[in-house]
Structures are given as C-alpha cells and as structure tokens.
C-alpha cells in the first residue's frame, strides 16, 4: 500500500545530516536535470544550513539516489526527506530506503 505522504509527489529534498556523502556531486553531474545539490540558510536560523539534494523524481535517478543514501546511512549518518512541504517522519535506515523505493515505484507508473 502506498504511504499517503508519498502520493503524487513530483520532487523531494534529501537533507544530509553530519556531512555531504561521497557520490552526491557525481550523482548531480550525471543527472543534471533531476538532481541539484544546494545548501540553504535562513535569515533567522539559530544554526547554519545543511546540504541537501533537490531531486525531481524519475525512476532512474531514484535508484541512483538510493545508492548514495544507503552509503550515507551505513556510515551511521542520517538523512531527512521532505516532500510537499512536510518532513517524512520516522525516517531512519531501512525506512528511508523503503520510502525511496516506494517513490521509485510510483515514478515508474
């Protein structure tokens, strides 16, 4: 069953906590139309911004992104995934990969 939080999503951001993963820049250069790496800092934030990948969803890029996210998680670092203005909560380890797989399935349809 499709999680309602991931239904009809056209783009997501994956925020990489505790450092930028190896392979992210390569992913962006191989998929320039779908992946953009940027960092954001807000006027009033008490903490400096973090680096994130903005991903326009296609099955190919989601599969490639999953490899990068998996490596980041295996290094005991975490990610935050956002879609349609909301963080997809409860995301850690397997959950993150499951959600990416679910999005990938949807993008294939």
């Amino acid at each position, binding site marked *: 069953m499709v999680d309602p939080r991931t239904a009809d999503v056209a783009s997501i951001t994956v925020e990489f906590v505790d450092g930028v993963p190896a392979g992210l820049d390569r992913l962006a250069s191989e998929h320039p139309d779908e992946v*953009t790496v940027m960092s954001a800092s807000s006027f009033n934030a008490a903490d400096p911004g973090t680096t994130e990948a903005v991903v326009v969803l296609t099955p190919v890029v989601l599969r490639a992104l999953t490899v990068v996210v998996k490596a980041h998680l295996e290094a005991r670092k975490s990610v935050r995934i956002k879609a349609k*203005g909301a*963080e997809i909560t409860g995301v850690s380890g397997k959950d993150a990969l499951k959600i990416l797989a679910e999005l990938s399935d949807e993008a294939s349809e």
Partner: protein
Amino acid sequence: MNRRAIAARLAATRVTALDGESEGPLANIYRRWHADLVERLSARVAHLPASELYVARTANARSEMLTGASSPVIVHDQHLGRTLNRLTGYVVDDWPATRVHAWGFERVAVAAYAGGDFDACRLALALSQTMRGHDSPPEPEIPPGARQLISTIQEHFVLAHETAHTMLGTDALPRVKAALTEDVGAAFAASVATLDEFGEDIVSTAARDIAGAIGRLFGSGKIDEGRITALRESLSRPAGGVDESAWLDAHPHLYEEIACDLIATDLSLEFFAEHSTADEQTVLPAILMALHHLTSIEFLDVVASGREDLGEGTVQAAMIRKTAWRRLTRERRAGLGGLYVQVTDDHSEKVGDQVLFIVPTLWQQARDRLAGRPRTDAPADPSRLHQLLWSLADPR
C-alpha cells in the same frame, strides 16, 4: 542556479501551490530593490559576487539564501512581508492578545506540518480558529500609511540582509569575526553593565507584564501558573549572567549574521533617506521591531518542534544579535536608546510575551489534554491541511 530546481525545492520543503516564481506588482518591487541593493553594494566593494533573486510565496513565510555550484540565490518570501506587516499592526494598533494567539497558532500549525506532525497541525489550526473568535480587530491607532512605511522598511531590511550575505561570499567568516570581535565584545560588556545595574527591575517589570497579560486574558484558574513560572525561569539569565562572547564563539556563524544586520541597516538607511522622509529615528526602530518579529516567528517554529533545548538556543542567538545591533547602532543619533527601549517594551507587551509564554503554555495544555484520550476522529488529511495552510498565504 536552475530556477526549475528552486521551484522543485520549494514544492518539496514549503507549503505552496505556485509552480514557479510569484509575479505581480509586489514581486516587481522586490526585484527593483534587489537591483538597487546590488548597485549600492557594488559601490562599496570591487568584484561583488553575482546573486539572483527568486520571489516566492509560501505559507512558511521564510526568506533564505540558497548556494550551490552557481551564483547564490536569495529566496524572498512575499508572505514574510505580509507577516511582518501583520505583526507590526498588532504592536502599533494595539490588537487584542487573542488575535496574536490566533496568529501564533497559525504559525505553529505551519511548523507542525513542516515537521510532518499532521495531528498537531490540525490541533493548532483549531486553536487558531477558536482564538480568532474571541475579539474584534481594533480601529487603527496610527494612519495605515505610517504602519506600511514601518513594514516596508522591515521588508527592505530583510532583503538587504540576504543580499549582504552574497557580498561577504562563502568564506567570509574568519574575516568577519576578526573585524567584529572587538566591537561586539565591547557591546556585550556594556550590556552586562546595564543588566547589573537594572537587572532586577527588568525581571520584575517583565514578570508584572506577563502576570497582567494572563489576568486580562483568562482570569484566574484557567492557566497553569507553574508552567509560566518555569518558562520564565528557563528563559531568564542565570546568576552571574551568560557569557555572550563565549556563546558567540561557540556559534561563530552568528558573527556573519551580525555583520549582515549592520550592513543591511546601512543600506536601508541610505535607501529610505533617498526615497522617503524616513530618517534614523524611523528606520532604526522599525528594524529593531523587525528583529523582534523574526525572533517571535522563529520561536514558534521551535514550539511546534517540542524541543525546549532548541528554544533556549534560539532565544539566546536572537538576544545576542539584537544586543550587538542595538549597541552598534544607537550612537548614530541622540535619543535612539530611549526609542529602542520603547520599541522593545511595546513589542514585548503586545507580541513577544504572548509568543514566548502564553502560546507555548496553551499549546502544551491542549496537547496534554488530548494525550490521554482515546482517539475517535479520523487521521488528519495532509492534502486538506496543505490547502488550508496555503490559504493563509493566498487569501483570495
């Protein structure tokens, strides 16, 4: 930076229904301001790094700077302007506190949604609706044009702040820190001296104001006084005072924020001197009020997150920025110190105390009451909430 990527990012991280940039007369004013700011900065520094402006409209009311492989992009949120205008109205037109609470819960709702807590979002929207029904808006106390000028200055300052970041570049921190450490240290020393002299009076006055606000709103017995006291104590300065310089050294990115506040202040003073009759006595208090507004906005985001540790850090960071700004700008003209005190007192009474103390207390009470009850309603519908929140930024 690819504007399609920016739109994709906003669609993923914000509550918006726009699939591109905001258009219209207001967006065009921001673009003219940005071009003007770039020109003014180019006159100050050689080889000013290029920057772009992207005008957004989102319920999140958040301006930010995006950096990537190409030139930085300032995302200026049109709804932040409306929010600053609204908060300024609460202060200068003496709106009922319940309307401030209604706004506060709207803000909590947006932040709860952003954090993925849809039940909390729904609860906050319900509380906002309830609060809105308590009182009517007042007749404006000052002419609408005067309030608009204050809000215009505030918005210009926010855009100038972001543009100043692009001037400093990505590796500015060591230079900025070296340039500011002495001045900011002197500002903190003066601040501590003031607190030593007047600290007890300040705390007593704040306590009285808060107690008065609670009494006016709820009468007796309707609010958890113990929680108010605990919140007040957690936000007050511990004995001996916080070492602001040490705190700043532990959070060095704030040096850059302080530098950009000061650069933006100069730019806004220059702009409004040329384009209006507003002088330092109008522009500087308006900017200070904007800094207070932004603290309130940020604090409510933290309330929604439920993380009290972040709350203290947010308040501390805001206090440090404002202390440095006040001390480094008040010498420009005699009498500014008194105006700053007045702005701060007005803001605390009308908005600041409500946001820091009353809204979090009511929020916690509502959450606690619901926590033990068996669930009878359907789960919150994220799509419906998205529509409701978007209507806040798109009130057609």
